[in-house]
């Protein structure tokens, strides 16, 4: 079974970048002392009422528009009723039948190219508090911290259109980039401001299934006897929770897909699971049959969905519980909140304020600057301000490729070393552009150019730095020809090697010229002269 399709849908919760909670004025700052950022409203004390944060709604709206969602002109809030100690009201204010946005998409870049992942809906809801369980003493009490209770969350539910763990990773990275660029969320997974649950199952082609024991008496029925038109069978969906890092998402899904494949084979072999050929459904453009198991009354019934937790330490998913039936959340319209309307003018304003989004930016960078998809992707990933810097570097020098190299290599490492944001970059982009222009004009080599760059970080222009360092490029052919001839004469072994076809041997001769000029010989001229002279030198 190697050819199964992995079907993944992601449910991502991001915390919106508000100062205060969704329904009260308590702070959303991460890491405050336990139960120090709560009030009667977010503690759900009797008599309190929620009032919706305008900022939270606006941020959610921006995100949904950026995700190409259709925005409902009328939306309302609902109560999702369930009991849990981190939810003081024992209902969560969320959106049920009329979410403010639906039917969107997100374009992702993977090694296989660009893919568009559908989004079912994005809705606004409140977060729950935090539970602390003592792992070492199962019977000891749990502790509750309500600081996080009522924090505004945007829940973004993708369609089951993600097909590999790599794509799942790309989806989250792209979402994070987009939301950070918009200032909607800081998406810090380790602080819980981006959380992810994944629904995963496999669609396995019937012909790919090996039946180890199908000819033995009493073993499971032969494949051929299933009257199914389906080309695939679907394994039960597992909802993987506790995915706290992007790498964790990828690892967990990879593990879980393999686990499901093995589980399917084992359970079919053991006669525990059966293929229900009588029921098929269409998934995209192909037919799928579900898996069944024998219930206590002897009839075949579907194998229910289950929840699994990802254990980063062991690298395994652990099945927590089978959902025997859907939870009964008894949704009802939230009577304490009023509906919200969004008109066309508001939507246009939001659209106008979004600016250029990463996917569009990547396309433009490739088209406008002839960058590779990879370079455009890497640039885009650094954020809008960085891209703007890059573009300002290109302007004076006209060399996008070099601008890309300098910004992504030298500049980025400078920023990383100094822990600086691009907005605090000590080097104005025009200066970097000028350096690239100087390099091209004078043929300053990379090593010298880096020295110049280092001085420029202290506030010098490229010209000032070059003067200060006393770098005067030697481009005079007569002067260089003399040096080249001396170099050839001084390196007979290298000349001999070169003549034998060792092209690299020329570097040693070139090195001689460079040493003599303290690195200031114009490389292209030296190269040209050297080749000519070597041709003329007898072997």
């Amino acid at each position: 079974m190697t050819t199964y399709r992995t079907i993944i849908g992601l449910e991502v919760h991001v915390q919106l970048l508000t100062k205060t909670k969704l329904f009260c004025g308590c702070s959303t700052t991460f890491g405050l002392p336990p139960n120090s950022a709560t009030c009667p409203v977010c503690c759900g004390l009797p008599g309190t009422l929620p009032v919706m944060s305008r900022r939270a709604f606006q941020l959610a709206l921006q995100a949904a528009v950026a995700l190409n969602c259709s925005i409902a002109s009328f939306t309302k809030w609902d109560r999702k009723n369930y009991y849990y100690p981190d939810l003081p009201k024992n209902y969560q204010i969320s959106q049920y039948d009329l979410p403010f946005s639906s039917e969107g998409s997100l374009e992702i870049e993977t090694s296989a190219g660009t893919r568009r992942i559908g989004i079912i809906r994005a809705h606004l809801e409140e977060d729950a508090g935090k539970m602390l369980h003592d792992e070492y003493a199962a019977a000891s009490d749990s502790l509750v911290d309500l600081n996080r209770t009522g924090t505004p969350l945007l829940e973004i539910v993708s369609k089951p259109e993600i097909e590999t763990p790599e794509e799942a990773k790309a989806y989250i990275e792209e979402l994070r980039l987009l939301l950070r660029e918009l200032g909607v969320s800081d998406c810090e997974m380790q602080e819980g401001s981006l959380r992810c649950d994944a629904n995963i199952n496999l669609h396995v082609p019937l012909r790919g299934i090996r039946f180890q024991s199908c000819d033995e008496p009493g073993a499971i029925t032969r494949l051929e006897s299933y009257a199914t038109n389906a080309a695939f069978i679907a394994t039960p969906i597992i909802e993987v929770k506790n995915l706290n890092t992007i790498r964790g998402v990828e690892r967990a899904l990879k593990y879980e897909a393999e686990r499901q494949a093995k589980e399917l084979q084992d359970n079919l072999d053991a006669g525990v699971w059966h293929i229900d050929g009588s029921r098929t459904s269409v998934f995209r453009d192909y037919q799928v049959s579900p898996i069944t198991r024998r219930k206590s009354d002897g009839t075949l019934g579907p194998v229910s969905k289950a929840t699994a937790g990802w254990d980063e330490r062991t690298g395994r998913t652990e099945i927590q519980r089978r959902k025997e039936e859907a939870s009964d959340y008894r949704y009802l319209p939230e009577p304490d909140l009023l509906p919200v309307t969004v008109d066309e003018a508001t939507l246009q304003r939001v659209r106008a304020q979004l600016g250029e989004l990463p996917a569009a930016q990547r396309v433009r960078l490739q088209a406008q600057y002839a960058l590779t998809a990879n370079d455009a992707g890497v640039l885009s990933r650094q954020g809008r301000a960085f891209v703007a810097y890059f573009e300002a570097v290109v302007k004076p020098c006209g060399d996008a490729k070099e601008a890309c190299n300098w910004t992504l290599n030298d500049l980025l490492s400078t920023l990383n070393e100094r822990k600086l944001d691009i907005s605090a970059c000590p080097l104005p982009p025009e200066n970097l552009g000028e350096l690239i222009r100087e390099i091209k004009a004078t043929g300053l080599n990379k090593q010298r150019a880096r020295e110049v760059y280092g001085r420029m970080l202290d506030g010098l222009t490229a010209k000032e730095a070059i003067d200060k360092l006393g770098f005067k490029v030697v481009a005079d052919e007569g002067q260089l020809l003399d040096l080249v001839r001396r170099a050839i004469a001084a390196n007979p072994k290298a000349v001999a090697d070169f003549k034998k076809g060792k092209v690299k041997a020329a570097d040693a001769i070139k090195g001689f010229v460079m040493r003599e000029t303290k690195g200031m010989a114009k490389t292209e001229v030296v190269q040209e002269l050297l080749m000519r002279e070597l041709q003329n030198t007898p072997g």
Partner: protein
Amino acid sequence: MTDLTATELLQKQAAGDLTAASITSAFLNRIRQYDPALRAFLHVEEAAALQHAEAIDAKRKAGQPLGKLAGLPIAVKDVLCTKGRRTTAGSKILQNFVPPYDAHVITRLKDADAILIGKTNMDEFAMGSSTENSAYQVTHNPWALDRTPGGSSGGSAAAVAASQTSLAIGTDTGGSIRQPAAFCGIVGMKPSYGRVSRFGLIAYGSSLDQIGPLAHDLRDAALLLEVIAGHDPRDSTCVNMPVPEYTKMLDQPIKPLTIGVPVEFLPSPSGSGAGGEGAGLDPEIETAIRAALNVYESLGATIKPISLPHSPYAIAVYYLVATAEASSNLARYDGVHFGQRAEKFAGLIDMVKKSRGAGFGTEVKRRIMLGTYALSSGYIDAYYLKALKVRRLIRQDFDRAFAECDVVIGPTAPTPAFKIGEKTADPLAMYLSDIYTISANLAGIPGISIPCGFTKAGLPIGLQILGAPFTEEKLLRVARMHERETDWHKRRPPLE
């Protein structure tokens, strides 16, 4: 002195004849004297009230500006949160709950220099029509101690009727201000939904709950409404609309005045017509209502028979909508973050079940069960959503009525105050006592009950006047037209 109205007490203070301290002491004495028999109060603020009264007197002496209710004791239903003061909602599950904040209405009262004299008894979580569902005590009707004061604001209504206070605050989800006002012979008003902030009101049915005044007469009720009404940014459903000075225009009659009388509330005099649920109407009440209509006719009003065809369904709608909301509102009482926790349990879920099982009374459990059932999968369409649709039809009935009438008038309750214990065994019979009041909550419109007579046995009768949303001023003025012509509001129960 305690028989005086709030307005009279304010005048006497202004004239220097009475002090806030003397008024407060007099009411505290009255409470001490009669509450052992009436049981209207759950907590009485003896020391704090007197201290506050003295502070008001000092303020007056110093010539500082005083609020509209300066020096007036007021009783508040124990369903409004009072900072640092126990607030129980009549439930055992909140027996030790001390809110860290004041309800908006409490803040308004304090700002108006009113003196909180105590918190009054109520049906647990305002679920009931007789105040018998209190986890703590049964309140008696001052007009007949063997009868209930109505409910769920029975404590507040009884306290005003017995002159233990001149003003009280109640809440009304299906008639819980108006029906006890009728049973106790006083004025009680449920404002339009959204007129008074619900912030700090312990919720029962959030889309129906409103806070309103209970008083001896209309001037006092208007005054109290003036103080508590108005915008509060902490309640999204509280409208941002100016509050008229209700007391100013009170004595201006509405002319011309068209009064709609629904056949469903009062059978047509000829005995023909729909009659509907009006058929269950006590004949003595019917007579009193007709007499009140005669008063209006004599003042030049046009009486117009109308129909509210969906009003017979109001109780069914109410017991789905209110209980569905309640099942969710009351989920927070689980013994986790506040409220009573069961003593013995096995694990979390058992702790929650036991805490709720022991902390809630029978009626509350019944309504939580009904609401949970109505929202559960498989039933939500047939029950809850169906009820919301009929709710719209009920609202549309009223919209049509107010297009052709200024107000709608009928009885507040089908019977006078019933005996304690009379209906406790039959929940449905108890529910039906709210037949005339419930539609106003479903439609979100204001309603008022005013005294309009007594039965031969000496039990008060209430006249209900309903108006279009946010026409409280008109409602009060129409009610006042009747009050000026009668003296029912001046009667006090013969307590001894």
